[in-house]
């Protein structure tokens, strides 16, 4: 059993791209601003000409927490796990998880890169692992 994102017209392209193994961020076609999570209009220039830009998938751990006490039964057998706010090389930050490293070894500022994990049938979540 997994907890999976409900999708809206606004958010579905993000998850569709993840299922295809691509990390994308909403991009304003008018001024170039990158925004995550996506918004119905560009908060800078108010354009509604918005698209999606594939990003490098590289970033750093902006902050993180090691969860040792689950707050939902779906995570009861997954503790300890790491929640991280990852700052992408392109600027936007996104909530994700850190994999491929012991939770105790995660540090703020650590370089990471995206990996894709299928958590349910047809649902893939971007995660991050230490970058070599």
């Amino acid at each position: 059993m997994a907890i999976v994102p409900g999708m809206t017209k606004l958010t579905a392209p993000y998850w569709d791209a993840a299922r295809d193994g691509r990390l994308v961020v909403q991009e304003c076609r008018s001024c170039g601003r990158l925004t995550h999570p996506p918004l119905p209009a560009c908060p800078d220039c108010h354009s509604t000409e918005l698209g999606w830009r594939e990003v490098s998938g590289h970033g750093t751990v902006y902050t993180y927490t090691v969860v040792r006490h689950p707050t939902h039964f779906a995570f009861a057998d997954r503790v300890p796990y790491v929640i991280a706010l990852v700052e992408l090389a392109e600027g936007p930050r996104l909530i994700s998880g850190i994999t491929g490293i012991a939770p105790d070894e995660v540090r703020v500022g650590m370089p990471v890169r995206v990996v894709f994990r299928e958590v349910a049938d047809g649902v893939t979540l971007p995660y991050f692992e230490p970058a070599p």
Partner: protein
Amino acid sequence: MTRRPVIRNTAAIVGIGQTAYAKALEPTAWELAVDAILSACADAGVDVADVDGMCRFTAPFETVSEAMLVRALGIRELAFFAQAPHGGEALGAVVAHAAAAVSAGLANIVVVYRALSQSKGGRFGRADRGGPGGAAAEGAGDIVVPEQDNLSFAWPYGLMSPGQLFALWARRYAAVHHLTEEDLTRTLGTIAITQRQYANNNPAAMMRDRKLDWETYAGARMISEPLRLFDLCLENDGACAFVVTSAEVARTLRGDPVYVLAATQTLAPYREPMGIYVPGELLELFPSAAADRLFEQAGVTRKDIDVAEFYDATSYMPLRSLESYGFAADGQGWRYVLEQGTGPDSPLPVNTHGGHLSEAYLHGMNGIVEAVRQLRGTASNQVAGAAVALVGAPAGSATILAR
């Protein structure tokens, strides 16, 4: 833009009431709300039937509607009612709405209340108990999180509770300001232990009889690192309420009304409570203009504040609030806590009732009730001569009260 101080000294709190606070109480939230409101009206010396205004937090935070209370309390008619969203950020808003309403003559006697039954309803620390952070039904298959307020980008990764969010903030704070693990533990622990000591002397506090020493604090299990068990607020049942009226009416009711000097709201882009996608440094919880506006409207300075009740879902929040409201320089709050502390003999006693960590969790509203006691001179941990008090939420929604 300069704003005319419409509230300053034109509205006052004339009655406070609260129920018992406990992990589980027999009464429902509705019954608890009725109890607290009747106590507050009795304390104010007003007939509850004369109440003509009510302010509350929006559902799903506040589950008891003003309509339920109008029926239950035999109130003839409400001429004014208002609800404030965003959880703890409603803390200053409900006071602002009540004070503005009596100042503008929209209502005469306004009740502000908060009732919680976490034993029977949603729990803030459990995302699978229908809490206000959103609910995902238990089923045989996968759980789909409807998109609302970015939850669909957070829940799949197990980011589901306020405690986890504040752990992210606390970790960032330590990294930016170069705190060692020991620095961070000692800072958060000082806040938690100081508040426990206040609670040990507060007969109404849930933790009245439970001492907390350093060994127990540091040895407690990690919930969401770097936050330990005692860094997180209590979950409980209980209710509290207070009565707001105009300054003129207040003076006819009692000799010691507590005046509202300022009550403010703030909402900046992506700085809603739990907002994690701030464009700048994550630690900037609210624009400094919000705190400046609060003091400007109140007509007082930081130096005038005798006691502060800071919203403390976690021990990190009073630390950061000391900085955000301007009592310590940015990044120096932790040194301030270690060197000056927040206890009875510190420059600014903080959370003198024990706060959410050790009195009870009432979404900040018990902090207002405590501030009123302090200004009346009737608090268990009375700050000598307290004349001006600040009650503040972490993102800048706040109230300044004065006797």
